């Protein structure tokens, strides 16, 4: 049986969802026999694979780069999972939506700096005006709310998919949990 190809992606989030994935602890060892982790912060690939079965997306969409990335990933992924509140609702990153991008950058780079008081503008990706959940841009197949989702919920989702079933989190996951 060929291994299931999995990627993980980190957009605008805190990495807590990736950490919760690692919190499945020793179950990770058994899981490693069934999946190939092809892309993500935990492995070394620099290019998104041409095709993966499952991509777990942590984080909201907040910059032009995030947007380009999630569109590309969607086109190369069979099952896209919004992992955690930032991806699902926008969560804490979306709290900046009530301010303008300039206001946010000014606070950090002008008011709270002593030298070179200018917002970065080269190389770094431009921020979008609003931080949005992933499904406002691309089709999402499975939603796993939680800040972060519990390791048990993440393990349940992966196990169900490996068994060829669609996980149903409706009654076990809640926003903010």
């Amino acid at each position, binding site marked *: 049986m060929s291994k299931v190809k999995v990627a993980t992606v980190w957009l605008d989030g805190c990495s807590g969802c990736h950490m919760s994935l690692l919190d499945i602890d020793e179950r990770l060892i058994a899981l490693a026999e069934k999946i190939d982790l092809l892309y993500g912060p935990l492995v070394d690939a620099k290019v998104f694979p041409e095709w993966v079965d499952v991509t777990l997306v942590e984080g909201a969409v907040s910059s032009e780069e995030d947007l380009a990335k999630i569109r590309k990933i969607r086109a190369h992924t069979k099952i896209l999972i919004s992992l955690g*509140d930032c991806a699902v*609702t926008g*969560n804490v990153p*979306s709290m900046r*939506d*009530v301010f303008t991008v300039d206001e946010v950058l000014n606070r950090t780079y002008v008011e709270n700096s002593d030298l070179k008081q200018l917002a970065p503008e080269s190389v770094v990706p431009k921020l979008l005006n609003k931080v949005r959940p992933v499904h406002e841009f691309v089709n999402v197949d499975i939603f796993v709310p939680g*800040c972060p989702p519990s390791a048990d919920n993440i393990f349940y989702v992966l196990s169900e998919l490996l068994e060829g079933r669609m996980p149903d989190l409706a009654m076990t996951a*809640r926003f903010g949990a």
Partner: protein
Amino acid sequence: MSPASVEIKTLKIDGRDVGAREDQTILEVALENGIYIPTLCHLEGLTEIGACRICLVEVKGTPKLLPACVTRVQEGMEVMVNSERLQNYRKVIVELLFSERNHICSVCVSNGHCDLQSMAQKLGITHISVPYRHPHMPVDASHERYINDHNRCILCTRCVRVCHEIEGAHTWDVTGRGSQAKVITDLNTAWGESDTCTSCGKCVQVCPTGALSEKGKSVSEMSKRRQFLPYLTLMREGRP
């Protein structure tokens, strides 16, 4: 009122035959018979206003959906409280509530103790399918003991009703229409400057979300105490 003047009606709720007094609402009868109808703006001890529409039910012969909390029973009524159609409407209502303001559950004082949050879970909502509005809403922390965070308010008006009906102060009211609507204290002055507020805290305890909270509470620490309400109502009705 004397028992003789009350007529008894019989009706069906989800196929079950139930009896009710003529002055009862569908919601009351359902509750008495252990049939669950979800609610948000309803709170035992306060008048019903049918604001949130979560308790919408289907009544045979009527094309419209009717709010169970303000619809009186009628003889021979056939009520459906849990159809797929209703579930879908309820989901949309809760999703709209989430999209309207800034409900950041993870960092809310009422995380884990919130009626809106648990309603979403009960209805199986795993994401909000309408775009978030994320309006800039103020936080009024001018009161010595309490905070009013409009970001978390769902305009259920429990605060308005408890203040008027139980405390008798009528500090709270609603201003504006549609998406501009918000709860206010006195004539839209800062809560801390209110002349009428008795600082009794009933509004805080009945608030379903983290909109009204006690100062000093950290995230997830604001659980509400509501046991007092039916007791207060009972005591008041018992008075001559």
